[in-house]
């Protein structure tokens, strides 16, 4: 049997309304307990969930600490250079070979 587009639109609209009007089944406390039982089992089987979280935070902390160390070292170097005079002189001094006993 052939239906017109208007007929099909009407049927589609009816099915959409029927879909939204579906009654919802009730989930009781026993259902919640069953879910938690399985979750505890999962937690016992997969103990690495916590270690993954800890690992992620350890790496973040390490990255932040490294950044602070670089900033601190840079600041200290600049402070020394400004306080002691020429930065290049400080660096050159550090790079100069120590006088040998031959001289």
């Amino acid at each position, binding site marked *: 049997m052939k*239906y017109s587009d208007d007929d099909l639109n009407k*049927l*589609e609209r*009816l099915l959409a*309304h*029927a879909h939204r009007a*579906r009654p*919802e089944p009730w989930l009781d406390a026993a259902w919640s307990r069953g879910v938690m039982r399985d979750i505890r089992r999962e*937690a016992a089987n997969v103990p690495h969930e916590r270690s993954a*979280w800890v690992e992620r935070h350890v790496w973040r902390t390490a990255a932040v600490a490294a950044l602070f160390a670089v900033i601190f070292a840079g600041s200290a170097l600049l402070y020394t250079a400004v306080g002691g005079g020429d930065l290049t002189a400080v660096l050159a001094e550090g790079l100069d070979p120590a006088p040998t006993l031959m001289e």
Partner: protein
Amino acid sequence: MRAAGRYRAACSLHRSVPLVSGDLQIINRVLQGEVECFSELIDRYQQHVRRIVNRHVPSDHVAEVAHDVFVRAYTGLAGFSTGVPFEHWLSGIAVRTCYDFWRSKSREDMPVSAFTTEHDAWVDQVLADESDARFQEQVRRQETTEFLQRALQHLSPENRLVLTLVHLEGHSVREAARLLGWSIVNVKVRAHRARQALRRLLRGKGDSAS
């Protein structure tokens, strides 16, 4: 059990804080090993998950699929990004769990019920009814639900999910793509094909190769 009760009591303190920040606190505690705190998330979102699941799977499978949704949410909790509300993240898991339900059913080679002459008579009656009151009456009738279920049985799991989300529930293509974790183009193409397949079924051609 006493320890479980203590954790539950501790978690219930968060009921007084705003929903989103409360969710984040509970999630952090669960991730730090306080598994019992997850029951608070179940209490908060049980109704939301049940509503989504009920629209995609038969009523007698809602409890089982909703159960799987929460277990999946727990196992994937470390991947939860704080950039989206927990409810949205959970909705995606719920829809994808329903999709997996239909994929497993299609692998089981479920028999597809054919439309009968009674269905044809019902369609004719629906089309003949003119008034709004009669339309609303038809919405609530068992025949309508049965007809819809039979029509959806003929669709592939992908087309079924997309048709339900976009055409029956009125989600935008973008929302459906986010829920399914698919590209927008994929959902758009599937939505078009699924609707064509449904219309072919309604026309009585019974196209099952969708």
